[in-house]
């Protein structure tokens, strides 16, 4: 069973009164719950938020399923989202994704690597076309101006970092 932390509950309570209607708090609360649930929104997350926010689960689910930044399936510790639209597509975003996936041991996008660390998604324009190709891990700051070599090294560095902890 998923339950928000005490801080998480406080956060949700605060967001509920932040906007004109409490429905407007759904996106921020889903982010919070996703973070606390290891990076994805499970049916239990929706049920719990529904109870805490006193909003029908169907309304929360429709938001969770409409927007791409809520993961409806488990992802690895690093959800690597590589832009592959237009400019990033022209400048190697797709080739780079394939090379990173090979390094991480993922056979296809959406699949988590055997060590549980990486899940890859090819995503749509992230608004950083002057630094193409580029990517975003989870909701962290963008990693820009990549080459295939730099991207593969990034996978190695993150793996080393994860093992070190």
């Amino acid at each position, binding site marked *: 069973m998923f339950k928000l932390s005490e801080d998480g509950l406080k956060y949700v309570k605060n967001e509920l009164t932040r906007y004109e209607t409490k429905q407007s708090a759904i996106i921020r609360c889903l982010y919070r719950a996703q973070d606390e649930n290891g990076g994805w929104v499970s049916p239990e997350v929706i049920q719990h938020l529904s109870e805490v926010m006193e909003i029908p689960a169907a309304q929360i689910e429709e938001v969770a399923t409409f927007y791409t930044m809520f993961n409806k399936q488990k992802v690895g510790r690093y959800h690597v989202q590589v832009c592959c639209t*237009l400019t990033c597509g022209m400048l190697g975003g797709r080739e780079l994704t394939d090379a990173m996936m090979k390094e991480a041991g993922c056979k296809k996008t959406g699949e988590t690597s055997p060590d549980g660390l990486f899940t890859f998604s090819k995503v749509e324009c992230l608004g950083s076309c002057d630094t193409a190709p580029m990517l975003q891990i989870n909701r962290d*700051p963008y990693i820009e101006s990549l080459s295939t070599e730099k991207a593969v090294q990034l996978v190695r560095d993150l793996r080393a970092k994860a093992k070190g902890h």
Partner: protein
Amino acid sequence: MAESKYLTEHYGKPEYQTLEGYKKLGGYQVLEKALKMQPQQIIDEVKASGLRGRGGAGFATGVKWGFLPNNGEPRYLLCNADESEPGTFKDRLMMERAPHQLIEGMIISAFAIKAKKAYIYIRGEYTGPAAILEKAIAEAKAAGYIGKNVLGSGFDMELDLYIGAGAYICGEETGMISSLEGLKGQPKLKPPFPAVQGYLRKPTIVNNVETLAAVTYVIRDGAAGFRKYGTEKSAGTKLFSISGNVNKPGTYEVPLGYKLMDLINIECGGLKPGRKLKAVVPGGSSAPVINAEECERATLDYECLAQMGTMLGSGAIIVIDDSNCMVDVLSTITHFYHHESCGQCTPCREGTGWMEKIVHGIVHGEGKPGDLDLLLKIADNMKGRTICALSDAAALPVLSFVTKFRDEFEYFIREKKSKVRGGQIYAQMHA
């Protein structure tokens, strides 16, 4: 073009991001001036300046503001910081380098349209700019620029940040309003337009980041001063996001009416050695592509590009050189629109899917004779038949790519490989 910059004049200075630095460089002085004006005077000045929406549609800002009904209902100002049109990244630069520039423009605009509550709707992926904005909003509140009785003027105004969660359609103003209301970001039928019935069915003005920031300079210099740059129908300067095959991609501020080739060759340092210009997408992925010959004649203003059958859009310029396969480029665009269609309207939901499927087939060497005519027919049937403009936006690139580069598409279908790079393109190497 250094003398013709107002938005980006101080972007090279890191202190411009903070309230203190922004004020030292003249920030919030225009707000003080505006608060001494009558709201209607500001609206009239914006109308006279000819400022047009910088987000994509290019609608006259002052005219939009004039649509607000005088029915005593509370009004909202909504800043569109969803910036999702492929190729566009200018608003991100502004929010990162000069968050107070946006905030000052929003306070002046809210005062002009008598909105007591304003929101910035920022796309979910922009977590960096969102953090900078939240800090800047807190600074502005603490300094009395936002809140009750702004600078002793008697005007009350609240400003908050709302974050999206990954949906291109939320950049469409009614889709954005749905999202702000906590719903799926699906557009609503117009009329009623948001100015009449928007957020929570109350009068709402939705303006782009750059538009709102430009309002400050309209008030600072007056309508005539603002018109010093640009053309009769495209007044002022504009931010252009340039990416693709140029030596120095980035965001550049130039007067509207500037020559496209000058921007490519002077500001952006031209193309890579040995490469030839093949095409340019001049206003974000929705804007019909133009070929090299058309680029020579193109000036960056609303009227010239409209005359060429394309549009200035958000000012996102994607430069494509002769090493690119146009079928491959179109395949990422058709994939994008299929992914981003919200699914409400059949022509868009089905049309984007079929277009992606056909282009995907061609690029994987499975194209059939008749595919191109079928593509054109589908695209043609998607125009003007839906709630919002996404369907048209998806159809236009297909129509223009296939029409203007038909030989590349025909070659691909016939030979089952690309005409460029000896066929060595992504779809065929990594299938």
